[in-house]
C-alpha cells in the first residue's frame, strides 16, 4: 500500500513539476509576443525617431530607445535615464544628473557625452528633424553641454515651457553615440539591427522591410521607467507590419497575434470575448483637414468657412466609427495639457450659413450638375490629397463630405497618393510646396505646443500655409510662458482665431486602440501606446 501511495504521488508530482517547468520556461525564456501594427511608411526612411514625425516611429522605437525622463499617468515628470534635474529660474538652463549603470545594446556606456551626441544629432541640419527638434524648442535650443561624466546641461536661448514633458517622448530617445558617429543620416533613417541601438528593454535583431522585426530581450535592462529592476519577462517581441486593418483584426481574433495596434471602432464589435481592448484618447491635434489658405479658392476665408460648415462631420464619424469616436469642438484634443477651449462651438453643420457665405463671395451661379461656378464658368472645386494606404473609415468620411458639400455646390475631389507622390506634392527642396487645396492627419502631442508646428509661419506641418503675425506672436509667447493660466489663454486665442478663419477643420478625436489576448501586465504610455517591458504571455 505504501509503495502504491508513493507511486501515486510520483505519478501526480513528476508531471506537475515538468509542466510547471515548461510553463516557467515558456514565460521566461522562450516566450515571444507577436505585435501586429500598421506601420505605414516606416520603411520609407522613418525609422529614425529624431528625424521622423510618424507616431509609428515613436511607438515602435519606444521598445528600443529610452528617454531622460518619463511621464506618469497624472502627467507628472518622473526620472528615467536621468535620476534628477534642476531648472534655472529664468527657464534657460536644465541640468540633468544621469544614471551611472546604463549601457547601450552595443556595449557603449550611457553618459553625458552620449546625451550630448543625441541632442547634437537632433539639431544637426543633416538630420532634417521633422518633430524632435521642435520638441526641444527649435531655434531656442542652444545646445547640450557636458558638465561632468554624468552631468549634462541643456541650454535654451528662450524659455521653452514643454521641454521636460517632451523629453519623455520616444522622439527624443537615446541612440548609442557609436551609431551617431559611424552611420550616415541615410542609414540612420533606414534603420536596422546595427542602427536602431538604444538602451531600451528590447534589442533589434532582425528587420525585414515591410514584413517584420524581431526584437530580443535586453538581459541587462534594469532601468525601466516604472522603477522596476526586472528584465523584460518575455524573451522576444516580434513586430509584424500589416497595413490592412481587417487583416490585423483577423490576426488578433484568431490568436495569430498577441497584441494589435491601430484598430478603429468598427473592428471592436467583431472581436472575440477573449480579446481585451485598451482605448486611450489621443492628445494633440484631432484628425483634421488642413485648408491651404494660400491656394486658389481657399484664399477666400468665406469659402473656407463655407467648407467647414458645409459638411456634417458628426454624421460622417458616426457612420465611420459606429459611435466609438467623438466629434471635436476644437483643434486641440481635450486630453492635451491645459489647453482645451471650453467655450468652443466647433464647425457644426450649418448648410444655410455655408450657402450664404458662398453667395457673399460671388459664387452664385451653378452648372448643370449643381456645382457653383464663377463668372468665367470655372467650377468651385477643391482637391484633397492624402497618402496611401488610406483607411476605409477615412474613405467613409470622404464619401459623406463629397455628398454634403455637393449640396452647397462645392465639388470635393479626393485622391490618395502613393507616399512618394504625396511627399513631392507636400514639399520640395525649397520647403513646403502644398500642391493641393487640403490634406489631412492627426498629430499626437501631450502639449499644446503642437499648434506651433501647424499654425506658426514656417511650422513644418503648416499645411494650411498660415502666416499671421498675431498668431505667430501668441504661439511664440505661449512657448515661453511659465504661467499656466496665461498660457492657456494664449492657446485659446489661437483656437478662436482658427474658428474665425477655418485654417484647420477638426473632424474626429482619434484614440489609440490596442487589442491584446493572453497577455498580462501590458502597460501603456500617455499616448495609449503599448509598452512591453513588463508584459508576459499567460
Amino acid at each position, binding site marked *: 500500500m505504501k509503495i502504491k501511495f508513493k507511486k501515486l504521488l510520483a505519478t501526480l508530482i513528476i508531471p506537475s513539476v515538468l509542466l510547471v517547468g515548461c510553463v516557467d520556461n515558456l514565460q521566461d525564456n522562450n516566450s515571444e509576443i507577436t505585435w501586429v501594427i500598421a506601420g505605414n511608411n516606416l520603411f520609407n526612411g522613418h525609422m529614425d525617431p529624431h528625424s521622423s514625425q510618424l507616431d509609428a516611429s515613436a511607438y515602435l522605437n519606444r521598445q528600443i530607445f529610452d528617454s531622460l525622463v518619463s511621464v506618469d499617468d497624472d502627467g507628472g515628470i518622473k526620472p528615467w535615464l536621468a535620476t534628477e534635474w534642476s531648472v534655472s529660474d529664468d527657464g534657460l538652463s536644465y541640468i540633468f544628473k544621469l544614471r551611472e549603470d546604463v549601457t547601450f545594446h552595443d556595449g557603449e556606456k550611457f553618459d553625458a557625452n552620449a546625451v550630448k551626441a543625441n541632442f547634437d544629432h537632433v539639431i544637426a541640419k543633416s538630420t532634417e528633424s521633422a518633430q524632435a527638434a521642435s520638441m526641444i524648442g527649435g531655434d531656442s535650443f542652444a545646445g547640450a553641454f557636458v558638465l561632468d561624466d554624468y552631468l549634462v546641461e541643456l541650454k535654451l536661448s528662450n524659455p521653452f515651457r514643454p521641454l521636460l514633458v517632451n523629453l519623455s517622448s520616444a522622439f527624443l530617445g537615446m541612440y548609442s553615440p557609436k551609431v551617431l558617429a559611424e552611420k550616415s543620416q541615410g542609414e540612420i533613417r533606414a534603420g536596422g539591427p546595427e542602427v536602431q541601438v538604444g538602451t531600451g528593454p528590447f534589442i533589434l535583431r532582425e528587420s525585414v522591410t515591410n514584413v517584420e522585426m524581431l526584437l530580443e530581450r535586453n538581459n541587462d535592462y534594469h532601468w525601466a521607467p516604472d522603477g522596476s529592476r526586472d528584465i523584460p519577462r518575455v524573451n522576444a517581441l516580434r513586430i509584424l507590419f500589416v497595413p*490592412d*486593418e*481587417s487583416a490585423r483584426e483577423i490576426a488578433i481574433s484568431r490568436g495569430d497575434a498577441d497584441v494589435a495596434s491601430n484598430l478603429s471602432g*468598427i473592428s471592436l464589435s*467583431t472581436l472575440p470575448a477573449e480579446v481585451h481592448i485598451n482605448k486611450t484618447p489621443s492628445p494633440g491635434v484631432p484628425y483634421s483637414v488642413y485648408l491651404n489658405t494660400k491656394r486658389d479658392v481657399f484664399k477666400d476665408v468665406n469659402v473656407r468657412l463655407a467648407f467647414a460648415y458645409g459638411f456634417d462631420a458628426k*454624421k*460622417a464619424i*458616426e*457612420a*465611420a466609427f459606429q459611435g466609438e469616436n467623438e466629434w471635436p469642438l476644437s483643434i486641440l484634443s481635450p486630453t492635451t495639457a491645459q489647453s482645451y477651449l471650453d467655450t468652443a462651438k466647433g464647425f457644426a453643420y450649418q448648410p444655410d450659413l455655408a450657402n450664404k457665405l458662398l453667395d457673399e463671395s460671388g459664387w452664385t451661379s451653378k452648372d448643370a450638375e449643381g456645382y457653383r461656378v464663377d463668372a468665367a464658368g470655372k467650377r468651385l472645386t477643391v482637391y484633397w490629397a492624402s497618402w*496611401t494606404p488610406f483607411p*476605409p473609415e477615412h*474613405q*467613409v468620411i*470622404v*464619401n*459623406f463630405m*463629397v*455628398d*454634403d458639400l*455637393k449640396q452647397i455646390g462645392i465639388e470635393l475631389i*479626393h*485622391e*490618395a497618393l502613393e507616399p512618394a507622390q504625396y511627399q513631392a506634392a507636400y514639399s520640395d527642396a525649397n520647403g513646403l510646396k502644398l500642391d493641393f487645396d487640403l490634406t489631412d492627419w492627426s498629430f499626437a502631442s501631450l502639449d499644446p505646443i503642437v499648434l506651433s508646428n501647424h499654425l506658426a509661419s514656417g511650422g513644418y506641418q503648416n499645411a494650411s500655409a498660415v502666416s499671421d503675425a498675431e498668431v505667430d506672436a501668441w504661439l511664440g509667447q505661449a512657448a515661453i510662458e511659465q504661467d499656466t493660466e496665461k498660457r492657456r489663454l494664449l492657446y485659446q486665442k489661437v483656437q478662436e482665431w482658427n474658428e474665425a478663419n477655418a485654417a484647420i477643420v477638426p473632424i474626429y478625436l482619434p484614440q489609440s486602440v490596442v487589442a491584446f489576448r493572453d497577455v498580462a501586465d501590458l502597460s501603456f504610455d500617455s499616448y495609449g501606446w503599448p509598452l512591453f517591458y513588463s508584459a508576459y504571455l499567460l
Partner: protein
Amino acid sequence: MTVSTPLKAQKRLVHFGTYLAFAFLLVIVLLAVFPGLFATFGPLETSENVRQAPNLEHLFGTDASGRDVFNRMIFGTGASLLIALTTVTFALLVSLTVGMLVSIFRGSQKITAKASDVLLAIPELLLALIVLAVLGKGTIQVGVAVAIAVLPAYIRVSLIRTREILVSGFMVTSKQLGVSKFKSVFTHVLPNLLPRMLLMAVLGVGTSLVIASSLSFLGLGVQPPNPEWGAMLSEGRLELSRAWWISFFPGLMVLLTVLALAEVRAWLKRVFA
C-alpha cells in the same frame, strides 16, 4: 462514359440560354447608357443607414457610407463596360490592321509573331500592372493598360488566321489571276479574318471586364467615391464578415456578364460554323 447529344439539339442555333444572355446584355447596355432611368438614389448619396441588408427600399442593401448598392451598381455599369468595350475595340482594330499589313508585307510575319509571342509570355494582368506602374492610376490609364495587356493575344490569333487565309486555295487562285495584294486584302483577307476576330472580341469583352475590374479592385482604376464594379467589390472586401452584400452583387454582375458573353460567343460560333 460518353453522352451523345441528340442530333436535333446539335442543329439548334439558338438555345434558351442564348435568349437569356441577349436579354441580360440588353439590360446591361440600357443600364450603362441610361442609368438615370433605373436609379432611385444618386451614386454618391450617403445616408445614416449604413450596412443595411437587402430590403425593399435598398434592393441590394447599403454600404459602409449608407449608399445604395443597387444604384451604385447601375451607375458603375457604364464605367465598367466602357473600359471593356473601348479596349476590345482598340485590340480588334489593331489586330485587323496587323493582319492586313502582314498579308501585304509578308516578310514581316515572323518578326510580328515573335514580338507578340514575347508579350504573350507575360500574363495579361501582370502586363497591365506593368503599364500602370508607368502611367499611374486612373480610369483612362486602366483603359490603356487593359488595351495593351490584351492586344498580344488578338495579334497572335490575327496572324494565325491571316496565314491560313494566305495559303488557302482562293488566295492562290486570286494570285494566279493577277489580283493585286492590296486588292485581295479587302476582297479576301479582311472578310475571312473579321468573323474570327469578332468571335474573339465578344468573349474578349468579358476578359477585359475582368482585368479592368481586377485593376479597379486593386485601387488602380476608377477612384472612390465613384462607382465601378471592381472598385465596389474592393470597397466591400473589408466588410465581408459584416455586410456581404456590398461585394456580392457587383461580383455577381461581373460573373453574369462574362457568362452571357460566353453564351453569345457560343451562339456566334454555331452561326459561323
